[in-house]
Every structure is written in structure tokens, then in C-alpha cells.
């Protein structure tokens, strides 16, 4: 839908409550028209690259995890090595054919959907190259799922440092967008764990880069949203494996829970922390520890300062609240049903033994896909500085209340590194954040079929808060890219656009994502 004219008049029929004067671009981009495709396909094959043009190949990649953006590529290339990708990009540059790179396909705004052109499936490059237990690093191809990497590392008693709580996120995808774990308040985002990269530039050069070698390329590659290169290999920091000791605290107030979360992060009181809610009624602050010592220190110094309660204490306090509010009984029933579904899942004995959670990502990701996932997922988010976070959460929560009966908020901090500031520019890390950035995802429960307009209006209202607060977004592109310039300003966007044009003259690589 072209809503640009309506934005000029100040009225948006899609999001009537949204901020005015923002050019709406939250619809599928136009499909690339296929100019020179047969010549391109012939040249690519002549270069020895297998190009799949069957409906079976293209149809498998027609949408992403969000399920709201649909687009068919003209052809699919399954990544096999850097040389093959270099040949693809050189040829694509020559013929002006767009190339969309896909990892796990877990985007929700169509960032990994190809609206024509080539879909490059990176999961074909998913082998571990080398594990070095002495230096605690691993070299791996970037199409590997974090969980597959964990499976390999665990055979040697090792583990990754920080990765999204989703089994099918790929390493490459996380390097490009950040990657948030519940240990990010301590360790930073997944992308911060990268030591060195092998990348293929949009013009087909294969480059090794790091903080000390081709540093400018390294800066643009990390958190680069795939604009400046395809990352093909990475050296990541890793660590010795430890199971995790979990503790849960329940709140009836978002504000109080967020304040406590930020206090814990600031004081380095736990190894893992985050907030997962059932609406704003049952707010769960989870904390976890890698060792008995850390947990003992938390128990003696910080636990009594938390204003949340255990499960029973929270239930006893919630009971009178609901008793005198009969109009909220349906919500109470929902909470109980939800609790009965979720809590056993988080405590399944095969994953939690002797009080220790063996694999946090297995536990959380299974539950997330089972109890939050569906063929359509709408998860707008806001990323802010510490100071603005409570306002963002409370305002976003009000929007959720307005649009949906049931929803979940997921909040987590990201420890920032001063030396990584160049990576953070034009990314999910807000420019005014220092020390920590905080992100909140707003995820409605798809308990019924909602219209596309309804979902879009909801997203717009959440994203509008970001503009108003001067925040950023974790889902940073695709169908919401119209917000980037408005939220982060013309100067930084134009500067990066100039860099993009220089690196990618034909603007072929992930062309519909950011610019």
C-alpha cells in the first residue's frame, strides 16, 4: 500500500493514532523486474555456481519467520564457500541483480525475504572449521545455527559466550544484527564476541578483517545488517561450559521489575538477567548464575533488595487483587492456564537436573516456539538508553493493551563496549546509550486471526514511540526501514548510504533492508 500521500496530509489510514509526517514504507518492496536475469544466470553458471530456479527451491524461501512479508526470488544459491559467494557477487554486480542473504530466516520484517533476484542461503556454510580450547576461540562458517555450534563445542566441554535464546538463529545473522542473550547485560551482544572475520565484499573481494587488520571493514561488517559484505567465517570467543542456576522473581509492576533489573545489571549481581512477562500483570524477573559462588554472593547481598516475590508469595498477593476485580477474571484464568503450560516446560527434568539448567537455549527456545510461535509473528521492539527504558516499556505496554488481550514483553540489557562504538553506529544500539542499552520486544499472542492492518497499526504505534523517545530498534530494517532515518537522523543515514554506494556500486546486496 502506498501511504505516502496520506502521510503528507497528516492522516494515516493504517495507523490513525500514529505520529504524522512519517513516510510509511512498512509494505513489501516492489519486486525486482528481472532485467538481464537470463544473461546473469548463464554467466553465473559459467562461473561454476549452482543456481536453483525451480519452484521447489524458490518456494521454500518465500517468507521469513514473521510470515507477513512474501516474495519469491528468481533463483536460489546455497552457500558453499567464500569463492562461490565472491563469484556470485561479482556477477550480480555486473548485471545489477539483487542478492538477499538469509541465515536462519528469523527476521520478522521481511529482511531475509528476496523480492526477486537471488536468495543466498547461508545455512549451506555451516561447518565448524576449528575449535581451539587453549585460546578459547572457535573458527566457524557463519551459516551455522548457534545450537549446532553448541552441539559441537559441548563435545569438548566448551560453550559459546552469548547467543540469542533461539536454537535456529545463525551465527552470521547475529553478527549482522547483534544477537541478545540473557547474559548480554554482562557480556554484550553476540556480535561483540567476534574476534576476526572472513568477509566477501559486494564487489566480490574476499577479505580477512579484525580490529587490527582491515579495521574499517570489520567495523562495517559487525552490526552492519548485511549492507557492506557477506560474512562467511568468524573467529568467536568461547568459554568452558557450565550449567546454570536459575532464580525467578515475580512482580505486579513493570516499572519496579525494570528498576530491579537495571540495579542488578549495574551492580554485576548476576551472570544472567532478563524480564519475561504475561501482559503487565505477572512480570517475571529471571536471574541466573554460572557458579555457586556467584549465586551465594547474590543471595547474601542483592536478593533481599529485590522487590519481587517467589511464586507462592506472588500468587497470594495477586489473589485479593483479582477477587475485587471481576472484570479481570478472564485475565486471571488466562494467567493460570498460561502458567500451567509454561512452568513445567521450563522445568522439564531432562533439561534441568539437580536444580541446574543444562542448556538454557534449549529450554527457552523450545518454549518460545511452542507457546509463542505461529505462522505469523509480529514482534516490534524498542532499544533505548538505560534512562529512557522504563518510559519505552510502559508506553509500549499501553499500546499492547490497546491492541491485544494477551501479550508478552521480553526485556534485556546489553553491556556496551567503548571500543566497539564504531560498530554500534546506525544499529540497534541507540546513539545516546552508554554503559548499557536496553531492548524490549512486544509480542502479542495470536489467539485469533488479526487483520494485516490491525497488526501494522500496532507495529507503527510501537515504532512511533522510538521516534518520539529518540530510541533505536532491534528489528532494524525491512518493512520498518522508514523509521530508521527519522529515529536516527539524516546525517548518520546519509553518511552510511554514501559508504554503501561506494562499497556496493550497483546496490545489489540486501538492497531492501536499510536504505
Amino acid at each position, binding site marked *: 500500500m502506498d501511504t505516502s500521500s496520506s502521510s503528507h496530509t497528516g492522516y494515516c489510514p493504517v495507523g490513525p493514532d500514529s505520529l504524522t509526517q512519517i513516510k510509511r514504507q512498512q509494505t513489501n518492496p516492489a519486486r525486482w523486474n528481472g532485467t538481464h536475469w537470463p544473461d546473469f544466470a548463464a554467466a553465473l553458471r559459467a562461473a561454476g555456481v549452482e543456481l536453483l530456479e525451480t519452484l521447489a527451491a524458490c518456494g521454500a524461501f518465500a517468507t521469513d519467520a514473521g510470515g507477513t512479508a512474501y516474495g519469491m526470488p528468481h533463483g536460489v544459491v546455497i552457500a558453499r564457500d567464500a569463492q562461490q559467494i565472491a563469484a556470485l557477487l561479482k556477477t550480480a554486480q555486473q548485471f545489477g541483480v539483487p542478492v538477499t542473504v538469509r541465515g536462519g530466516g528469523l527476521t520478522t520484517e521481511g529482511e531475509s525475504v528476496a523480492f526477486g533476484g537471488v536468495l543466498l*542461503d547461508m545455512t549451506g556454510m555451516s561447518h565448524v572449521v576449528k575449535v581451539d580450547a587453549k585460546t578459547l576461540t572457535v573458527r566457524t562458517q557463519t551459516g551455522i545455527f548457534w545450537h549446532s555450534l553448541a552441539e559441537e563445542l559441548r563435545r569438548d566441554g566448551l560453550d559459546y559466550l552469548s547467543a540469542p535464546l533461539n536454537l535456529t538463529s545463525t551465527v552470521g545473522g547475529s553478527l549482522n544484527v547483534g544477537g541478545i542473550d540473557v547474559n548480554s547485560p554482562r557480556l554484550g551482544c553476540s556480535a561483540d564476541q567476534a574476534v576476526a572475520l572472513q568477509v566477501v565484499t559486494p564487489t566480490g573481494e574476499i577479505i580477512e578483517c579484525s580490529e587490527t587488520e582491515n579495521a574499517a571493514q570489520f567495523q562495517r561488517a559487525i552490526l552492519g545488517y548485511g549492507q557492506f559484505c557477506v560474512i562467511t567465517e568468524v573467529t568467536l570467543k568461547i568459554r568452558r561450559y557450565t550449567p546454570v542456576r536459575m532464580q525467578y522473581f515475580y512482580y505486579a509492576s513493570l516499572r519496579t521489575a525494570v528498576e530491579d533489573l537495571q540495579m542488578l545489571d549495574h551492580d554485576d549481581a548476576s551472570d544472567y538477567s532478563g524480564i519475561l512477562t504475561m501482559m503487565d500483570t505477572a512480570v517475571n524477573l529471571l536471574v541466573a548464575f554460572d557458579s555457586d559462588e556467584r549465586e551465594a554472593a547474590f543471595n547474601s547481598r542483592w536478593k533481599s533488595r529485590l522487590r519481587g516475590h517467589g511464586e507462592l508469595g506472588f500468587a497470594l498477593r495477586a489473589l485479593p487483587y483479582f477477587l475485587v476485580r471481576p472484570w479481570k477474571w478472564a485475565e486471571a484464568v488466562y494467567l493460570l492456564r498460561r502458567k500451567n503450560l509454561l512452568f513445567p516446560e521450563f522445568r522439564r527434568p531432562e533439561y534441568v537436573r539437580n536444580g541446574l539448567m543444562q542448556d538454557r537455549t*534449549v529450554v527457552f527456545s523450545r518454549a518460545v516456539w511452542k507457546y509463542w510461535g505461529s505462522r505469523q509473528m509480529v514482534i516490534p521492539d524498542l532499544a533505548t538508553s538505560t534512562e529512557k527504558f522504563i518510559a519505552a516499556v510502559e508506553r509500549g505496554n499501553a499500546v499492547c493493551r490497546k491492541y491485544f488481550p494477551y501479550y508478552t514483553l521480553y526485556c534485556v540489557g546489553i553491556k556496551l563496549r567503548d571500543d566497539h562504538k564504531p560498530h554500534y553506529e546506525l544499529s540497534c544500539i541507540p546513539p545516546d546509550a552508554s554503559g548499557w542499552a536496553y531492548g524490549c520486544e512486544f509480542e502479542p499472542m495470536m489467539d485469533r486471526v488479526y487483520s494485516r492492518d490491525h497488526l501494522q497499526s500496532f507495529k507503527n504505534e510501537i515504532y512511533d514511540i522510538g521516534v518520539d523517545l529518540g530510541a533505536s530498534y532491534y528489528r532494524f530494517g525491512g518493512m520498518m526501514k522508514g523509521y530508521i532515518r527519522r529515529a536516527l537522523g539524516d546525517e548518520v543515514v546519509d553518511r552510511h548510504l554514501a559508504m554503501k554506494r561506494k562499497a556496493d556500486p550497483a546496490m545489489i546486496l540486501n538492497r531492501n533492508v536499510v536504505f
Partner: protein
Amino acid sequence: MVAPLPNVRGDFAACSGCSLCLLVCPVWRRTRDLRYTPHGRAKALQNGVPVGELKDSIDSCTLCGACEPVCPENIDLVDMTLNLRAQLPPSIPLQQKAAPAINTTPDYHGKRVLLVGRALREHDVALQKTIKVLGCVIADDDGFDIALNIEAGATLTEARRAAFLDPLRHAKQIIVADGLLCRTLQRWQPRANIISLGIALSRHASVRQHLKHGDLYVIEARAYHANVEGLVRYYDDLRFDTGCAMNLDLQRIAIPATARNLRQRLGIDTPDDDAQTRWLLQGRKVTRIVVEDAGDMAAFKAVGDLPVVHLAELAHD
């Protein structure tokens, strides 16, 4: 005529594209190609691809069932694949046994009956040990042709199914070596006492007591994945009680020892097991391999010099 698996729970339309099936799929491990996975097939079908264009993918599936328990949409992925196979020409020539005459029906009343299957039948030492340890009789009709027909997605005749099931009706327990047949029988006769050969043997003290630290215990994937909810704790306890390692991944899904499709398992096409078997062994400090499925023995022997024994062979004379 009897469709082998009539009640499919969910279908490809429910696939949300989460890719969790890729993490456990042996065909994915070998090909790293989304097209050869349940996810790839489901998404292709959702987007209008005719079944005929997916024949290679559909035939490549090993039916190990690892994808099914990890699917958050609870899709019967094995059945989905079998139903797709049923819409295509079979990948192997198929026959069904003729129904035997009534007066030849054996009497299994009150007995433990073993459905041997092809792989165990070819390992006489393991077979004889199994019979001795379990005190069971071998069924005259082990349903091998039925298992093949099911795997090929073919439709069974009612007469053949009845001829197979009727003698088993009064058995005290039915022990099934073929995982896919075990899964199917449990559905056909939900009130009957049907267990996999692996469970039957590993419960037995004379076998269990000889499992030890250093063993890699290889669970037969098909029967296990048909009932992960019911078996995961059993195997977890077995693992902790005996100290052996198992072919379980971090999600407690059994990593199949091989990645053979039907034609490869029948020896029509050459198997390509190396990547799968080596992955199973990678980084593990193992001194002996113990398999539930006799069909896995050759694959392990091909990639190393570790002793490989069938579970039944652990029982001392």
C-alpha cells in the same frame, strides 16, 4: 484397503518455518540443503509447489522421526512424508505377502513374541541371545513386507493387515525390532503391550548390568522418536545409572547412526553414512559401541576399529 497412517495430526500448512527440524535431520547434516528437510518440503508446498517436484526430497527422508518431537506445531512429520510418498510412484518395487490359510495361524497366547525384522535376522548371534534373554518366540510373520510398504507410503490390503495382526492379538507382549513397525503397531493396537527391542533388552538386568562408562549406547531412533515423551526419562535414568554415553543431542533427540533412505537401506543404492556416523562419534571418549538396532553395526565398523556389539550380546551365558 488400509491407508497405513490415516490420522495425520497437523500437516504442512501448519509449518511456521522455525527450522528446528533441521537441527536434528540426518539428511540436512549430509546435504546442508533446506530442500531436503521437512521445513523445505512444507514451505514449498505452502507456496504452491506440486508434490511431484519434491520427489527427490520426499524419497531422501530416512523416517528417523527426529524432527517430530522437536516440531513446535506438533505436526506428524513422519506421516506427512508418508502421505506425500503415497501420492508418488514408489521408489522401490513392492509386494505384500499373501494372507496365510486359517489353519496355519500360530498360537501366541500368553507368549512374548519377537518381530525380528531383516537386520536382526542377519545377525544370528544377536538374535539367539535376544531369544534367550527375553524368553520370547519368533513370530512366523514378522511384518517385514508391511514395514516396507509403510515406509514406501503404499496402501495395505485389509486382508494382509488382518493376517498379520490376528495371531498377535493374544500375545502377552510384542517386541518389535523395526522402529517404524513398532510405531505403527502401537497405533494400530494402542491397548496391546508393544515395546521396542531396545527397551525390552535394556530393561533386562543381565543386559543392563554390563553397560558401563566408556560405552556409547546407540538408541534405535525410530521407536524412540515415536514416543520421546514417554521414553526420555527412561533413557536419561539408564544413562545416569550405568554411566554410559548415548546418541542423544542437547535436546535429547537420538542422533541416528546412519542417514539411509529406503533404497539405501535395501542395498539398491549405495549408503552415504560417513558424515552422520563420524558426527555421532566426534569428540566422544568411547571404548565400545552398543547398538539397539543390528542394522547400525556395519556403519560403525566402517568408520573405526572400536568394538561394536548388539545390546543382546551384553548378556553373559
